[in-house]
């Protein structure tokens, strides 16, 4: 059985989105066709085009932005000597929400993972190295996730910076704030112990 051309193409488009399989794509396409108001569809289509046309990745840090360079990179009040390296925009936003970090960012747009076909050259590391050559950066904070790929990626970047004078740090992991030791599982405790710091 063949669907009308327009539906088939919409299904194909939906299928290209992450996490959407053929079944879901079909359901979404028919929802648009049968249930959505024309006005809503128009707005949807406009915002799709707009994010692509009006937004870009910041050529300096890789953040998504409508200005070149992005608001963070152009903000002269931020501490230009520190760069936090994060996996993606969502992580950058999480850091910004904290309102405590005043340094700059570098968004990798992924983590190295050969089984997903992503090699070291496939994420935004080259730009980071270029940046570090020019700018006056004294510390790089590796803030990738604590997944095994996040750890590998952090360790790899640290190795690349081994011969520079730049201080390389890794965000700590361990006990949740306000949590008692007796409630922590053993692996969390182990990591907290490994990441201990000197008080005296």
């Amino acid at each position, binding site marked *: 059985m063949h669907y009308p051309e327009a539906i088939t193409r919409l299904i194909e488009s939906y299928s290209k989105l992450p996490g959407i399989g053929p079944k879901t794509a079909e359901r979404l396409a028919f929802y648009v066709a049968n249930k959505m108001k024309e006005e809503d569809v128009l707005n949807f289509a406009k915002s799709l085009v707009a994010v692509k046309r009006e937004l870009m990745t910041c050529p300096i840090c890789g953040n998504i932005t409508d200005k070149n360079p992005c608001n963070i990179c152009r903000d002269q009040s931020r501490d230009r000597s520190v760069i936090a390296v994060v996996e993606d925009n969502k992580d950058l936003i999480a850091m910004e929400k904290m309102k405590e970090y005043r340094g700059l960012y570098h968004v990798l747009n992924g983590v190295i993972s050969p089984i997903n076909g992503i090699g070291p050259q496939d994420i935004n590391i080259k730009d980071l190295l270029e940046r570090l050559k020019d700018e006056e950066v004294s510390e790089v904070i590796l803030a990738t996730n604590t997944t*095994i790929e996040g*750890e590998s990626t952090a*360790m790899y970047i640290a190795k690349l910076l081994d011969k520079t004078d730049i201080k390389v740090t890794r965000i700590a992991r361990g006990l949740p704030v306000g949590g008692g030791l007796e409630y922590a*599982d*053993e692996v969390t405790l182990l990591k907290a112990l490994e990441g201990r710091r000197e008080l005296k």
Partner: protein
Amino acid sequence: MEIKQLKITNFRNYEQLDISFDKKVNIFIGHNAHGKTTLLESIYLLAISKSHKTYKDKALIRFKEAYSKVSAELKKDDTFLKLDIIISNQGKKVLINDVEKRKISEYIGVFNVVMFAPEDLEIVKGEPTNRRRFLDIEIGQISSIYIYHLTQYNKLLKQRNEYLKQLQQVKKIDYAYLDTLTEQLAQHGTEITKKRIDFIKTLTIYAKKLHQHISNFEEDLMIQYLSNYRLKHVNFENVFRLYKDHYQKDIEKRVTQLGIQRDDIRFMVNGIDVSDFGSQGQQRTTALAIKLSLIDFIKEETKHYPIVLLDDVLSELDDIRQTQLLDCIKDKVQTFVTTTNISGIKSDLIEKADLFCIKKFHIYKKEGEQDGE
């Protein structure tokens, strides 16, 4: 450690089951394919969060049903614990006292089991994978840190092997990345190896003694851990160097040559490798001694006795072996026994047991002959 109540819903062929246990020893009698193994499997699942028979959790869901659930009320020292495990299309959920535990390290080891099954012989006779599985399950059930290292190691190994494969297509090898994967692999590999060494060392002490008793002091058991690293001193530096020395070979063969995925154990009886040269009887004695030694081992490590599950093996054991087993479980270890035929089981054991009949995935307590005591 004791199971006071067990509830099962849609677990394999069981639709509903709700039984309470009063005695330490519980014997289940039933015909083939009436649900004996499945009952023990459900208890095993609660402890280990995996089946002893299959890797596929979904195989445990009763045909045509959406989910499967096993719950137990446990008595640990003087406190009661409720444990639930639910398997559905969405995956597996574990709850302790109605609170969901997302990390394995949060629920592993709530209680421990030692399962005796006909397949145990494979630990001695079978392929090295059987012995590595044995190591991983038994060390894993007392150490969630071991499980952590093992899962990290396996993920890294996959990434590294994939990267080695992809090297065929790239012009220049990125040694910084290969070093990164190797360093991480070496870190976890070192920890796993150390834990395996300790485990075998301690287990040998217990198994040796048991083996002597079972063999009437005629035989002497030695267990050797054959670490693939073959290092005198297992530490990160040495392991890392070893991997680095193998870079060329790894790149040539496009797969990681070294590691804990190639470890093995050797069982020696009177200086002879039982896996290859032992008689049937020697292999059985060895398998039994190893399994029995886990009871004291777990007690020592966790301060609690495990629950012992005997699937169809008790009536196969001769008098000496049954006596040895009784000696190990004493009156302290809760034990679940299945059999098709009760006549092969020693009367000392039957006397202190509650008897149950399993018929077509229903369980009835056998009253009557037990009432007198």
